[in-house]
């Protein structure tokens, strides 16, 4: 028998350095990415391998999704929410801040289909206008986290060495502080200046949420880049004299983008929830900004739930629906991109 028997061979399908912390689903914070089996190679989600054949995979994924009604439902909902966020006035003629105590807690009726809240404001108008802040927070946090985590992850994965070591530790630090906790502390640390309007209020939440969520994306991107880097076409490009910058931008990043986009979409729903939670605690958006979190908070006293459940029901339903739409969409795209799940 000539076959070598290696007493302890490594896992064949990959780089198991046994050093990296496992990509355990992080729970306290983050992503509604429903974790796949944490892969033994430490951080590459199964979608990570998707990067290798983006084109045919994209086509396949599209074919797969096209046939799923849920994809269309989720996609339509996302579009609807985006439209509401951008043009709320298309959906209601009422001013969400025009309120009269005479109308306090009037139940749903023709002309005010969601009823009126405690202050006598029209709940339908507030629910419509409330979408904007939440969706903005969601989108910009996802973008910022993707930008921050993506670029640092690319750097770490591509450069390796001490850059990687330092960035990885930095990510660990932020990863080890639960997001809600970190956000609460940061909100107290960074109070909104009194003159601040909605853009600043949204920006503050976006910064704080992104600050505690970038390690997610960082890890994902780093693992993707590390996986893509030794691929032959990258080596070939390098052999042809592509500089590191060009190599990273034109070969590595595009191939590692797919998992990033999927995870960001799913996370987006989580950001909306977290924003609502912060507003619920009274430290998120100020009361001057119409937001679901505030309205839910204002309606969620037990006495109010019992007296005027519609006050809670409508904004809560809108919030849940928006979150659901984003995570559902992300989930479907992820499933479609993951050949194993088909």
């Amino acid at each position, binding site marked *: 028998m000539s076959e070598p028997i290696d007493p302890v061979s490594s896992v064949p399908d990959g780089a198991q350095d046994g050093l990296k912390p496992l990509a355990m689903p992080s729970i306290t914070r983050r992503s509604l990415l*429903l974790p796949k089996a944490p892969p033994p190679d430490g951080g590459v989600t199964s979608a990570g391998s998707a990067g290798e054949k983006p084109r045919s995979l994209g086509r396949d994924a599209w074919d797969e999704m096209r046939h799923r009604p849920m994809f269309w439902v989720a996609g339509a909902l996302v579009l609807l929410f985006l439209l509401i966020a951008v043009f709320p006035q298309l959906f209601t003629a009422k001013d969400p801040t025009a309120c009269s105590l005479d109308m306090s807690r009037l139940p749903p009726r023709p002309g005010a289909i969601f009823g009126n809240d405690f202050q006598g404001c029209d709940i339908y108008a507030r629910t419509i206008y409330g979408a904007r802040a939440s969706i903005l927070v969601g989108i910009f946090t996802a973008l910022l986290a993707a930008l921050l985590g993506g670029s640092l992850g690319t750097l770490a994965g591509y450069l390796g060495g001490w850059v990687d070591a330092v960035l990885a530790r930095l990510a660990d*630090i932020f990863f080890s502080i639960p997001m*809600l906790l970190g956000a609460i502390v940061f909100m107290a640390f960074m*109070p909104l200046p009194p003159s601040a309007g909605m853009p600043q209020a949204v920006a503050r939440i976006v910064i704080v949420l992104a600050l505690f969520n970038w390690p997610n994306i960082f890890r994902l991107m780093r693992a993707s880049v590390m996986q893509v880097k030794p691929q032959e076409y990258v080596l070939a490009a390098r052999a042809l004299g592509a500089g590191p910058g060009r190599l990273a931008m034109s070969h590595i990043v595009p191939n590692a983008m797919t998992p990033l986009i999927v995870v960001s979409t799913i996370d987006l729903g989580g950001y909306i929830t977290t924003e609502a939670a912060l507003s619920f605690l009274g430290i998120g958006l100020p009361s001057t900004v119409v937001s679901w979190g505030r309205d*839910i908070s204002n309606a969620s006293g037990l006495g109010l739930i019992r007296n005027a459940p519609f006050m809670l029901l409508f904004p809560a339903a809108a919030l849940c629906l928006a979150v*659901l739409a984003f995570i559902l969409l992300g989930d479907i795209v992820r499933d479609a991109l993951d050949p194993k799940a088909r």
Partner: protein
Amino acid sequence: MGKYIVRRLLMMIPTFLGATFIIFTLAFTMPGDPLAGRCGQKPCPQNYVDWFRSFYGLDKPFIVQYLVYLGHLFTGNLGISNYTRNTVVHELAIRYPTTLKLALIAVLCEIIIGVTAGIVAGIRRGGFIDALVTVSTLVVIAIPVFVLGGLSQFAILKFNLNSIIPVTSNGSWRSLILPGVVLGSLYVAYVARLTRTNLVENLRADYVRTAYAKGMMPARAIGLHAMRNSLIPSITYVGASLGALMGGAIITERIFNINGVGSLIYRSINQRDGTTLVGAVLVIVVIYMVMTLVVDILYGYLDPRIGHE
């Protein structure tokens, strides 16, 4: 293995120091004065202010405060709460049993409800139960805990079940059931989906086909071979979630009046009780890091392919 653990422990040090520094900086440079609201509408007498600042070391330069804190830390001294004047260790010690109970109830839900639902959905893939589990878990994930908490309290009160399942907690096991379930619901949903996904993946694995080829009935092929593999991520996830849950649950503890670590943290932020805040967060960070390590080791133990050499 020993080497791996040592290496991981060493790697925790910079993480730990970094986290201390960030939290300490945030906590002690936070705008707002612990004394501002302390004497009500009236300002506190200057002598009290002076005493307060020197007693809690707030009169020293920030960096000195930090170094003194670190020094104390290595002797296990987490300082004194400026709100209750108890030691932070004491503040944590009296709250941890409650937080732990709550975490255990949530984890129990994860295991009992989450894993079971995931298994049933995975085995009956594409069936009604699968659809039900998939949709309901997504909905649960989309509902913020403060909405779920409020609705559950409402339901309990509405059906007069308060005497059986109290809607607020006094720290007893029974009174922690409802908050535990609410807190656990999100994790239950995750666990169910994780279990389902892995089971579905493993049911199609070659070795399950091998198991059938070896003449096994589905009970053994699925129940032993597929399950053994599918549950590894779920088990480690549950372990990791326990680590996260032991950090306290700020919102759930608020809604259900639970005197746990989460409410301690919230109070210490509101009262600008920096020492308590830093102490509590550090303990959470350490628990989280240690749990991550434990989970990784557990993973290696459950899945022989993962080596920690």
